[in-house]
């Protein structure tokens, strides 16, 4: 039965279902218990599944991920919540040197089916460290899979797929979209869903390709709607998987449109957009009418809240880039 629920609630449902279906699934993090997390994504889960399944941990991110590694070796499937993007760095060592590498190091003998949930991105008027987009740090790291959902339905299925997967998955949640609603088929069989690592054409169009993920998919779709009024028919691709990227879907689109604009909140320099631009430039060399353009955060620390609207890519900046592409 399809229900119209928020993205946050969809994640909550997905986590609940995962806890129900496999008693090795445990949730751990700061304030995930009684409080249900600062964004209430784990609301009610400790009450229903107990303190052994939904674990309020000491305040130390390396500890959260490091003990999750041990639990995973023991056969558990930990789902770790990092409270905000900017607080993942104390755990960085455990993530890149252990989580990402243990399967390789052990020649496939030790699997770490760990999911690391990170609410990310800006737009909520927060103080420093609460609005960052650190996905490139993880996507650059072999051994990690990195995904991001953009809407309630994907949130619901993708979190379950991530938990079911034996790959370690860094799961980026677009925090400013937690409250946006959409239809979700609760209880639907996952086998019917798109695979976790498939991109999706979120809007079909022929004139140019917008590529986005997480919070920027909405922005890209809005831009496409606005562009349609000007008679430009934009295709919008929701990456969904940031590592690996589903390039075939992208190439097919760009070969069709001849123009591509990548949008993300993270600083541009060596961001995901750089890789996309580099690949598209190489693989669609003879199809491109204009260089791949990027609309991203600037190469500065995330600014104070009262400037973030000007920092974040928005509809206008996306349309401006589309214009520039056509003006090439």
């Amino acid at each position, binding site marked *: 039965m399809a229900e119209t629920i928020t993205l946050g609630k969809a994640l909550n449902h997905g986590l609940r279902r995962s806890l129900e279906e496999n008693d090795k699934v445990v949730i751990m993090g*700061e*304030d995930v*218990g*009684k*409080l*249900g997390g*600062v964004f209430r994504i784990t609301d009610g889960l400790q009450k229903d599944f107990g303190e052994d399944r939904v674990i*309020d*941990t*000491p*305040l*130390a991110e*390396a*500890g959260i991920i490091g003990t999750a590694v041990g639990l995973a070796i023991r056969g558990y499937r930990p789902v770790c919540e990092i409270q905000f993007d*900017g*607080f993942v*760095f*104390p755990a960085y060592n455990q993530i890149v040197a252990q989580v990402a590498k243990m399967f390789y190091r052990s020649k496939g003998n030790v699997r770490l089916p760990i999911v690391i949930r990170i609410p990310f991105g800006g737009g909520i*008027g*927060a*103080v*420093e*460290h609460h609005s960052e987009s650190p996905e490139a740090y993880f996507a650059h790291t072999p051994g990690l899979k990195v995904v991001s959902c953009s809407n309630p339905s994907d949130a619901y299925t993708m979190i379950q797929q991530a938990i079911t997967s034996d790959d370690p998955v860094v799961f980026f949640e677009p925090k400013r979209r937690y409250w946006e609603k959409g239809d979700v088929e609760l209880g639907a069989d996952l086998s019917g869903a798109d695979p976790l690592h498939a991109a999706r054409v979120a809007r079909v169009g022929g004139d140019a390709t917008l590529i986005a993920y997480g919070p920027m998919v909405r922005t890209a779709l809005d831009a496409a709607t606005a562009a349609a009024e000007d008679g430009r028919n934009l295709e919008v691709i929701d990456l969904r998987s940031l590592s690996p990227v589903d390039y075939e879907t992208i190439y097919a689109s760009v070969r069709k449109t001849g123009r591509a604009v990548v949008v993300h909140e993270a600083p541009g*320099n060596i961001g995901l957009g750089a890789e996309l631009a580099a690949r598209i430039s190489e693989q669609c060399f003879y199809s491109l009418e204009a260089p791949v353009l990027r609309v991203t955060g*600037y*190469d*500065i*620390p995330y*600014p*104070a*809240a*009262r*400037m973030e609207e*000007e*920092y974040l890519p928005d509809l*206008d*900046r996306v349309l*401006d880039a589309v214009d520039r592409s056509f003006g090439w």
Partner: protein
Amino acid sequence: MANGVSDVGADAPAGGFVQLLTPDGERRESVTTADGTTYSVDFTDEEYRGLYHDLVTVRRLDAEATALQRQGELGIWASLLGQEAAQVGSGRALRPQDMAFPTYREHGVLYTRGIDPIMPFGLFRGVDQGGWDANEHRFNGYTIVIGSQTLHATGYAMGVTMDGKTGTPDGEAVIAYFGDGATSQGEVNEAFVWAGVFNAPMVFFCQNNQYAISEPLERQTRIPLYRRAAGFGFPGVRIDGNDVLASYAVTRSALDNARNGQGPTLIEAYTYRMGAHTSSDDPTRYRIASEVESWKAKDPISRLRAFLTKQQMAGDEFFAAVDESAKTLALDLRERVLAMPDPQPVTMFDHVYPHGSPEVDAQRARFADYHASFEGSDH
């Protein structure tokens, strides 16, 4: 080196704490801890009244900030309600040459340093991220990432030693503030390692307000926090964090030990966060009203007021005057907060690098051009 477990007040947690002023406003002359250290204060009437003034003022300013947040004038506020004594006592214990490293909640310490209380409001309003000069104010920037400032403080304290500014009564000392939750962070424990190894002239001041957002103390430790220090080779003392006199006496003593070259001390100020973690938090989800109620009886201000009254150091007139002056300050603060200009967006490109960067310059220029292109349009 022994831990400073003191005689047990009626309201003390198991293991005791240093208390010089009971919740009823009774003054204990002095307290001697298990390791033989005696703590006391020797204030003039004027000084006692000064402390009261500070406590009331920082609470009033805090209340104003809470109100401003509710009215949408601040993005968020981290209230110190209930922790005034820990902050004012320790803050007043600092000597001018000392350096403080706060978290995001030390508005009371900031006030005792003689700093304009508006200083951190840019951060909470969202117009900047602090933006002050740590050295000018002898007060580091607010640090949001839990625990990181304890290492900064330790490094700074190593520098004090390297500068030859310890070993005498007018040496310099450093204080690092952090919460009960922070004690679980690896970085904080590394600061303990460093401070021990380098005998750094510093005081680790932990405000144990019983919660790290929703998580109660037992999620961070199974023994009292002040005992952590012994494991790293320096003394730990627990104080009644709602007693401004104990906070002053023990911090002053620890700072003086530090400046004299005797190395670090950990102080656990046993207190309670009376409000929400921040304005974004809903504490009813994780703690019961009766707990909060029981801590009201230990209020840091009312006990000092009772003491002043009993000792006839102050009367209604004084208390009213203090309230009035606090109110004036708070309303002035409010006005100035409301008057804070929004930053020019283009300033977000400032101060990325001391020596600048051609890349940032280019982005700034494109940003300016882009926005200029909207001039006159309805954007």
